[in-house]
């Protein structure tokens, strides 16, 4: 017993992994971490600036909530509506478009609702609803969830309003929802990056892509230190600036390869996107 306690005590007081120098905390959507993009980008940023970036990977809704409490310094999200609300509420003084990719409609290869033949996402969703084939929603206030709800709204089908046997919410991340979908032969909307890096797709396939409604832009938000005094705005600004710099944009476009990137850099010259300009009020 004393020996055991001694051992545990030793473990307890052993030094923490060194975190020398400056660091900032980034809340990023799970797709950017799970696809490996951040592992590709952040070491480059750190070697350029010496700033360590600690990543909390959560859905866009949760990421913005962390920002609202001032617990993170930069947010990488893909829910434009929610991002604009965040800006308008003054939690961030700056938002930049960073990159984009797209959502894809995924379902079992057998495609019982025949969505493959449909011209666009609106028609595909109507076909699923008509056939009452299982559709899995993230249901977690993530960017993907928000995009999915926009598509249903465009299709004129009030999924949220009524409980439907074929429409189910997992309340989980993209990976977990893909697992469930592959087990239940369900349709679902997923971001392309997570889908491509997902390792156990089973019989799931991409059934529809390319609709303009499925455009998926990612924005970087700099949490305002005027609103959250302990937010590291100066460090965060360096990250946001780097992400939209030629070096950062080139790095994004080169992952995993320049021929077939998972995320497309925002090639437009980086004009400020905020209603109030670069400087927080």
């Amino acid at each position, binding site marked *: 017993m004393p020996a055991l306690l001694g051992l545990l005590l030793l473990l307890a007081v052993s030094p923490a992994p060194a975190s020398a120098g400056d660091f900032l905390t980034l809340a990023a959507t799970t797709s950017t971490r799970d696809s490996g993009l951040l592992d590709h980008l952040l070491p480059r940023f750190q070697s350029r600036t010496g700033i360590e970036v*600690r990543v909390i990977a959560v859905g866009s809704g949760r990421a913005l909530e962390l920002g609202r409490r001032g617990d993170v310094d930069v947010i990488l999200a893909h829910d434009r509506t929610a991002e604009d609300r965040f800006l308008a509420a003054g939690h961030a003084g700056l938002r930049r478009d960073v990159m984009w990719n797209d959502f894809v409609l995924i379902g079992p290869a057998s495609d019982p609702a025949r969505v493959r033949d449909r011209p666009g996402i609106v028609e595909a969703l109507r076909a699923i609803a008509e056939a009452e084939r299982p559709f899995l929603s993230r249901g977690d206030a993530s960017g993907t969830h928000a995009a999915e709800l926009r598509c249903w709204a465009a299709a004129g089908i009030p999924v949220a309003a009524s409980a439907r046997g074929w429409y189910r919410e997992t309340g989980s991340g993209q990976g977990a929802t893909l697992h469930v979908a592959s087990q239940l032969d369900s349709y679902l909307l997923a971001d392309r990056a997570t889908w491509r890096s997902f390792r156990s797709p089973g019989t799931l396939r991409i059934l529809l892509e390319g609709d303009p409604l499925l455009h998926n832009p990612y924005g970087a938000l700099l949490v305002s230190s005027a609103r959250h005094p302990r937010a590291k705005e100066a460090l965060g600004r360096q990250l946001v600036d780097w992400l939209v710099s030629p070096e950062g944009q080139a790095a994004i476009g080169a992952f995993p390869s320049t021929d077939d990137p998972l995320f497309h850099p925002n090639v437009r010259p980086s004009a400020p996107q905020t209603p109030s300009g670069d400087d927080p009020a």
Partner: protein
Amino acid sequence: MSDLVDAFATAFRLIVDLDPDLVEIVALSLRVSGAALVLAALLGLPFGAAVGLLRFRGRRALIVLMNAAMGLPPVFVGLVAYMLLSRSGPLGLLELLYTPTAMILAQTALVTPIVAALTRQAVEDLADELDEQLRSLGAGFAQRAGTLLYEGRFTLATTLLAGFGRAIAEVGAVIIVGGNIAHLTRVMTTAIVLETNRGDLPLALGLGIVLVSLAVLVNACAQGVQEVARRVES
């Protein structure tokens, strides 16, 4: 079936290669849960002993609460800890969110009720047998509590192992207050969640097997120490 085979192969490879990422994650898991256990023992043993020995108004209600707290949901504890440690929370000044320290605190909150409640029971049972003799020998309150804890050392060792098991196996609290940050707050369980989300089930399962093996190893060591101790003294 082949997934399971893959998982064992992955686990085996991870262990044999001493994969540096794995070593780091295992070390952090042990350090966080070990520290949480030490803190929980420092708090829970004396508190449990005191409740076991003292008679006071509200004691029954307190015992009910202590026993119920053994089943605190980790994710609830994590949320409360997050609210406290958040930059806009009351302890935000400490800048502890997303650090191993925050994880230690959350797990301490999870484990302390287990240690306290089981210690209370053990001490109360021993007190029935020994306390009158100890008082007759002139032992004061602290001496009686200390002696009863020492008398219950074998039971309490199992209690501490149960606490350690709960800490190292939980994911709900550490993922919220730790954030699963690579090389900083990523432990075995949060790594398993991550790999599951990435769809890399063999790696996730492999990590799970390492975690289980670790638990077996820790318990086997503790058992060994106990048996030697039992032979020497008892």
